[in-house]
């Protein structure tokens, strides 16, 4: 293994010396300690477990904010700070030094994770107040926060991988939190298994990186990425993309996300909307030097993103389950981010910007949906909602603001970030630009349609409630997070995008986008987008606002059925993977029983049979023993004579 | 070859005498038949009818035979020593005493265990 690092020069990462940045490991350690205390402490911590978990998350947030300001206090060139922690795996050539990398990209994620995470912790105090296992829930949440922070803060791929698996574990535990529901258990298992496929790709990608560069640390790899062959970079890029697809529920590994909604709603908001599912986007953005050297892999990222944004949007159109509709939406929005990330330097910053605004509005909407479910006896069927705006004003308003943000209503968060993505997609050369841009544009229209459908079915129209439903506004501990998230949904986009604030902020990590020229509110693409969005809203109003919504879902066209069945994702998985897998398993079992066991048994029987036959030589007659000795002696003497005279 | 001629002659004479004695007896000796004449000649015990397979022999014969072998071997060692004991000196004497003592131990064992009593 010839390392490309002939003489590893020092990476241009400044080392933290004291200060808050030197203590940034606390961000991970605090929630991890919280999880450990709650899990080890068991029932004794029941009384204060939720408070401890929330406090740990908040403390982590405080550290992140302090680190953020310290970073802002530096010049742009000095905003990449390494924090050496310990020598993790010193094994011969493989020497993994665990450390953190605090730079604009990771601190953005850290703020999002701890900020939104803390709000969701607070919300969960109310949401889970009746659950006997609330303490366990908070310990898992803390575990998730710690793992997710490790994922984004680590300065090497192995650290990222540990965080990656950690969030996968937390996700598995939380999806299946209500283990008594078989559907939840199955969903957790499905999420875990589908993610294994992606993790497999990620792991092999990391192995390949190590084989090529002789290290797994970001600094040296990115510095020398251009020295590696395009073939290697493309392979690594595609493998990383496979990992990203698993974690971020992109085609073809999207099927687990809809089922993951079996988990408690705060989980859906935090893990399966705002943070964990965006890890794939982080991975690709973080690995930008690799993808920049592998145009094919980059194009694959964009295509996967475009395809998923459409698929997710179509699924969102047909779901009557409010959380699944939102989950389809999440898929779709992450598709936008992947698309942007696949556009190269032109798109990385936009992808992350959209990721952050999406984190706010989607988390807000999930929590709003949770608030609605809370009010409606945990019923998730939107056909049984209707007219909730009057009884749940705060939920309605905050959800509405999130709605305006996601469809891209001018001035709201999504307007800025999504339009940038669509523009950037059209900015690609030739047919590629039109195809990707067209997909993004079409997605925007469908988004407007299904989100409006969701709004109308839930908050407008007549009451279609079950008889025993007595909706009411949620307690303040749940509504305050909604309000705070709504503020982000309203102003986040403008804050990040106007004046290219965020793009400049991320420049040290992802580079300067070429021919980027600020946000233009009257660009032709933006105007077309607005028209299409309006059309989508209008269509939804015609179908669901004006007409009464039937409580029983109509059969619908084949397209509706197609969308309801998640575009036959499960069917495809089943026929392409599961059935062959089962056949393979059965064959393997058969082979194991007949072939391997047969071989082993046959061997054993053969040995036994030989033994039985040889045993007959053991007649018990001294004369036959003596005869065998005699012949043995003759053979030994003969052999020795033969050898000796050779 | 001449060296062996007397031995050969002696052998021939001995064989001739044996054949002559046995051959002449039936013609010259008196023929008075009785039962005792058919018995084995003063050798071991009276042969009795044995069961198939030879039956059992009293263990005492074995002991006698083994004692015979023990002393036979003792003689084998004693004989060369006796020929050259003057040259072997004290060392030879001591070793031979040790050897005889060892055989003596075995002998006393047989004696104490009544191996020498016939009944």
């Amino acid at each position, binding site marked *: 293994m010839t390392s490309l690092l002939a003489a590893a020069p020092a990476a241009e990462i400044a080392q933290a010396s004291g200060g808050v940045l030197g203590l940034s490991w606390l961000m991970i350690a605090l929630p991890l300690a919280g999880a450990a205390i709650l899990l080890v402490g068991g029932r004794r911590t029941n009384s204060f477990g939720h408070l401890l978990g929330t406090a740990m998350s908040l403390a982590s947030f405080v550290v992140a904010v302090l680190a953020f300001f310290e970073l802002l206090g530096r010049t742009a060139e000095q905003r990449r700070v390494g924090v050496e922690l310990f020598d993790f795996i010193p094994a011969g050539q493989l020497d993994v030094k665990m450390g953190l990398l605090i730079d604009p990209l990771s601190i953005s994620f850290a703020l999002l994770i701890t900020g939104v995470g803390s709000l969701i912790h607070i919300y969960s105090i109310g949401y889970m107040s009746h659950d006997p296992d609330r303490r366990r829930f908070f310990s898992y949440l803390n575990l998730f926060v710690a793992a997710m922070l490790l994922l984004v803060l680590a300065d090497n791929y192995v650290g990222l991988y540990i965080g990656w698996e950690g969030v996968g574990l937390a996700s598995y535990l939380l999806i299946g939190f209500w283990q008594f529901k078989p559907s939840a258990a199955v969903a957790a298992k499905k999420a875990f298994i589908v993610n294994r496929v992606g993790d497999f790709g990620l792991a092999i990608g990391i192995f390949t990186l190590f084989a090529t560069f002789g290290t797994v640390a970001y600094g040296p790899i990115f510095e020398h990425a251009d020295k590696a062959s395009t073939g290697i970079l493309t392979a690594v890029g595609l493998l990383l993309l496979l990992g990203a697809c698993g974690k971020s529920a992109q085609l073809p590994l999207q099927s687990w996300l809809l089922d993951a909604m079996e988990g408690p709603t705060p989980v859906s908001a935090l893990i399966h909307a705002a943070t964990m599912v965006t890890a794939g986007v982080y991975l690709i953005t973080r690995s930008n030097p690799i993808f920049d050297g592998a145009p094919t892999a980059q194009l694959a990222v964009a295509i996967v993103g475009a395809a998923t944004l459409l698929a997710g949007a179509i699924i969102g159109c047909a779901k009557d389950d409010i959380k699944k509709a939102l989950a389809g939406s999440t898929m779709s929005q992450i598709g936008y981010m992947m698309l942007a990330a696949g556009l190269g330097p032109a798109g990385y910053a936009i992808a992350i910007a959209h990721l952050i605004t999406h984190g706010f509005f989607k988390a807000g909407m999930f929590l709003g949906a949770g608030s609605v479910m809370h009010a409606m006896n945990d019923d998730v069927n939107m056909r049984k909602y209707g007219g909730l705006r009057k009884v749940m004003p705060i939920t309605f308003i905050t959800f509405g603001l999130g709605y305006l943000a996601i469809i891209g209503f001018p001035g709201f968060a999504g307007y800025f970030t999504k339009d940038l993505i669509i523009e950037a997609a059209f900015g690609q050369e030739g047919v590629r630009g039109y195809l990707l841009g067209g997909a993004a544009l079409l997605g925007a229209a469908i988004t407007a349609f299904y989100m409006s459908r969701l709004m109308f079915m839930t908050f407008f129209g007549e009451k279609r409630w079950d008889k025993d439903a007595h909706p009411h506004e949620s307690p303040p501990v749940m509504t305050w997070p909604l309000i705070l998230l709504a503020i982000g949904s309203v102003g986040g986009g403008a804050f990040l995008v106007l004046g290219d604030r965020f793009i400049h902020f991320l420049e040290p990590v992802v580079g300067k986008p070429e021919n980027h020229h600020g946000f233009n509110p009257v660009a032709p693409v933006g105007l077309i987008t607005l028209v299409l969005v309006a059309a989508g809203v209008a269509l939804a109003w015609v179908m669901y606002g004006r007409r009464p919504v039937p409580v029983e879902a109509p059969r619908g066209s084949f397209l509706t059925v197609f969308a309801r069945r998640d575009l036959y994702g499960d069917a495809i998985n089943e026929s392409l993977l599961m059935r062959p897998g089962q056949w393979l398993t059965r064959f393997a079992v058969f082979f194991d029983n007949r072939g391997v066991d047969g071989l082993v048994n046959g061997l*054993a029987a053969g*040995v*036994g049979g*030989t*033994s*039985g036959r*040889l*045993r007959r*030589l*053991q007649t*018990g007659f*001294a004369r*036959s*023993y*003596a005869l*065998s*000795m005699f*012949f*043995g*002696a003759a*053979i*030994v*003497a003969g*052999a*020795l*004579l033969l*050898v*000796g*005279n050779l | 070859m001449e060296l062996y001629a007397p031995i050969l002659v002696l052998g021939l004479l001995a064989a001739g005498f044996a054949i002559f004695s046995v051959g002449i007896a039936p013609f010259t000796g008196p023929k008075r038949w009785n039962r005792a004449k058919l018995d084995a000649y003063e050798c071991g015990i009276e042969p009795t009818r044995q069961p198939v397979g030879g039956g059992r022999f009293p*263990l005492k014969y074995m002991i006698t035979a083994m004692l015979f072998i023990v002393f036979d071997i003792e003689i084998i060692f004693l004989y060369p020593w006796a020929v*050259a004991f*003057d*040259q*072997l*000196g*004290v*060392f*030879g004497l001591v070793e031979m005493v040790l050897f005889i003592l*060892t055989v003596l*131990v*075995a002998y*006393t*064992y047989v*004696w*104490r*265990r009544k191996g020498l009593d016939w009944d």
Partner: protein
Amino acid sequence: MSTLLAAPPGTIPAPTIEYTQLAPMMLVFGAAIVGVLVEAFAPRHLRSAVHVPLTLLSLAGAFALTILLAVDGTRNVAAMGAVAVDGPSLFIHGTILVLAFVSVLLFNERLQFVSQAASVPGSTEEEDSLEEGAVQTEVYPLALFAIGGMLLFSAANDLLAMFVGLEVMSLPLYLLCGLARRRRLLSQEAAVKYFLLGAFSSAFFLYGMALIYGFAGSVDLAKINDALGSASGRDTLLYVGAALLGVGLLFKIGAAPFQAWKPDVYQGAPTPITALMASGTLVAAFGAVLRVFWVALGNLDWDWRPVMWGVAILTMVVGAILAITQTDIKRMLAYSSIAHAGFLLTGVIATGGPAQNEEALSGILFYLVAYGFTTVGAFAVVTMVRDAGGEAGHLSRWAGLGKRSPLLAGVFAFFLLAFAGIPLTSGFFGKYAVFAAAVSGGATPLVIVGVVSSAIAAFFYVRVIVLMFFSDPAPDGPTVDVSSMGTAAVVAVAAAATVVLGVLPQPVLDLADAAAHSLFVR
């Protein structure tokens, strides 16, 4: 002989005998002779009381003397070239004496031996002697003679002394094999078979010795080796002689195709004697094998090595495979012993330069210690599992023993795992040491056969473990007699040795290294 003729007439120079260096052997033989006198003169009821301390003390004393010799550091050939006193022989003597001591502890613990050997099985005389409570106490002096023979056999530096050692070792063992108190016919049959086949093998040895003498003009091992280079034209004498000599020795270690006696004899013999044979005799025989093949035929190794390859492979395979279908625990252990002899042979074959020889020798010595303790322990356990007919030999009787007596079954399982060579047992390091030496000696294919045989062997060891722990005990199953302190002590010592050699093998490995350091004296 030439010296005899050259000496001036009237004086034969007195041979020198280094009594101090032969002290361990002489102590054991002396105690044996005293034992005969005890038999002759002590009243019957006192005999055991005299024999046990006499035997054990003499063995302990001999061991102490061996240690003194080892510390003293003199390494030479004693008794006019008849007995070698060197590192390997001292190590082997120490091993034999300790193993013999432990085996003898098993002798008196339970009525293992026949009341009156001369009485016909099932006869009224037998009943009478049983009623009298008689025991054939001659086993003690006989065992001492056998042990003394082992010492001489393994240390002999010329073929004549070796033959004397062989016979002194074997003749008492033939007798002892026939002295089982239960299943006397089986025991006597074993004794007769062992005697007949042993005599047959001695004849081979003797004939081989004669041919070698014809080739080299000497029975001294070193002189034979010297003659290998010089004498030519009489190669047939040499090869046939070496082969026949080898047959006699391979018979004693139970190498195939000369292994047939082992299962029958091990099964029929009283179990303490089986323990003594499986440990002490094997150690002694390997000492003799090493001496003949490395010292006397050391320069011939290119010629005997291919043949020994075949013997080793056959031995390992036959031992491992035939063990599978055994239903008697002692027979199974006998085949196990055959397989182990095969493993040890791979070490004998691994000759090369001095460093290589030291490595191989050290490995063999360690293996012998490890295996010896484990096998004595295993047979000691066999003596404890009893039912109405004596020891419960049939494997089916051992079913569910783990439930009835978990500790004993656990210890036995541990011994079996050590036989299989599982890490953290002495067997692992023994096999490792020998196989590693064989690999560095260029016998990798042999090691592969060895490992495969070990795997096959592991099957039947584990089968017994499964039988003991995962089967339900029969309602009329055997009882475990733990009343005897001596047997319990033997099991404990063996288990401790198996653990210690498996966890902390280094001291004994160092000792074996040191013993092997200067190789054999010539």
